[in-house]
């Protein structure tokens, strides 16, 4: 009996995984939480044989992983940071793939009356009255950068206000915090629809063009890191802009709502 237990333990230790045509792709939490990767990756493997290992991190960390050459490509949504990444030579080009949109979520009672605003600017002004807290990602992610940009465009700097709570966490964790506090929060539509703990929260404001959220794919340049799987990363890019991927992206729905719009230039 003891011998067979040791034997099975040994089997567990010796079972080493082996990978063939694989690559590492860093994606943002908001993309992964949308559930689209669960649709795209099996189809990708079926069509091309490529096995993608997903690293789900914030945009800031994804860019760092790309700079260090620890991943072969990244799929993120923060235009200024992406352009700086290409500028610094870490990638040869930025390829736009698809977009979804950001929404403003808040408590059902909407104490700041932000739901009556006609633009995201007015909605943020209403929230800045401080009747309810505002939860910020505060983690240098794409969503966080967009949020700061929206405040800036609205002519406000709320970072030190007592109603402004920077959590320093991922999208899901930040939504959990907002639900717990009865706070307003900026999130992407995909994360919101897939989020399981919506208690007491609802969509307060949506539809402003300023809330457009573009995703782009960037291959890590083999110039700086000769070990990266440049060929595989290029094949993934070709697949991501193919008709098959376009169909899957445009056809992806949660609760009957379309999430992403394919807009790659071919």
């Amino acid at each position, binding site marked *: 009996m*003891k011998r067979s*237990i040791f034997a099975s*333990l040994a089997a*567990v*230790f010796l*079972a080493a*995984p082996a*990978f063939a045509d694989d690559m*590492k792709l860093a994606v943002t*939490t908001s993309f992964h*939480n949308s559930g689209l990767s669960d649709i795209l990756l099996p189809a990708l493997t079926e069509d091309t044989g490529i096995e993608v*290992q*997903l*690293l*789900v*991190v914030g945009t800031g960390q994804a860019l760092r992983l790309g*700079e*260090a*050459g*620890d991943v072969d490509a990244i799929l993120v949504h923060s235009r200024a940071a992406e352009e700086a990444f290409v500028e610094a030579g870490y990638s040869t080009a930025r390829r736009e793939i698809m977009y979804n949109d950001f929404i403003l979520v808040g408590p059902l009672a909407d104490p700041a009356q932000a739901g009556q605003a006609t633009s995201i600017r007015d909605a943020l002004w209403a929230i800045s009255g401080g009747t309810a807290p505002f939860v910020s990602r505060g983690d240098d992610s794409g969503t966080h950068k967009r949020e700061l940009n929206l405040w800036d465009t609205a002519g406000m700097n709320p970072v030190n206000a007592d109603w402004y709570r920077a959590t320093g966490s*991922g*999208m*899901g*964790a930040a*939504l*959990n915090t907002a639900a717990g506090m009865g706070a307003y929060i900026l999130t992407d539509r995909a994360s919101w629809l*897939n*989020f*399981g*703990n*919506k208690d007491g929260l609802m969509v307060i404001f949506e539809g402003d063009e300023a809330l457009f959220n573009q995703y782009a794919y960037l291959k890590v340049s083999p110039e700086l*890191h000769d*070990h990266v799987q440049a060929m595989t990363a290029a094949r993934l890019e070709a697949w991501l802009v193919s008709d098959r991927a376009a169909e899957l992206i445009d056809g992806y729905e949660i609760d009957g709502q379309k999430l992403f719009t394919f807009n790659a230039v071919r």
Partner: protein
Amino acid sequence: MSDIWEGLRAAAWLLISFDADLWEITLRSLRVTLTALLIACVIAMPLGALLVLRRFWARRFVIALLNSLMGLPPVVVGLIVYLMLSRSGPFGVLNLLFTPTAMVIAQVIIITPLIASITHQALRELWSEYHDLLISLNTSIFQRVRTLLWDGRRTLLTAALAGFGRAIGEVGAIMVVGGNIDNATRVLTTAIALETGKGDFAMALGLGMVLIGLAVTVNLAIHWLTGTERAGRW
């Protein structure tokens, strides 16, 4: 409260349905943590014994250092190991980042000070009893270490189980160096963090129940295999 019942139900369902993914991540959790535990014990236990037996100038400093390192935040260990193993770091060529091996390395660093500290505390008592005997028999340092480790094996088991407990429940370090990659480096704790992030509390709690069950099973199994808590032995 309903979330807790949902969690229990999710855990029961995961176990009954023999979920393939659950088995995979559970076995990976075990493999990573038991490997780390084995390596940490091989380093930490003789180190703890030597700290009892050898009087050298830096001894107090080493002991204080080990005690302080017990409280090392795992995420700091994760970050340091990441910077070491990153392609741009000194050990990048080994290509170990985002593999179970990287997770083992991080966990060894986290639990070695803990095991060494407990070993040192336990064997210090034992040494005060054995001191005169072992000195009068003119034993070598190697024989003394061996005697202390063997006769203190029951408290050393406690040290090992404490190390196991800290490693199996750890999430900060392995999230950074493992990356929580599906089918490659996802383990129970990182899966729990992921499900919590998705707001799927029932699933997260279900996985948590499985983790607790696993820890209890391993503890019982180790007690049984080593034959402690039985009449006539200790």
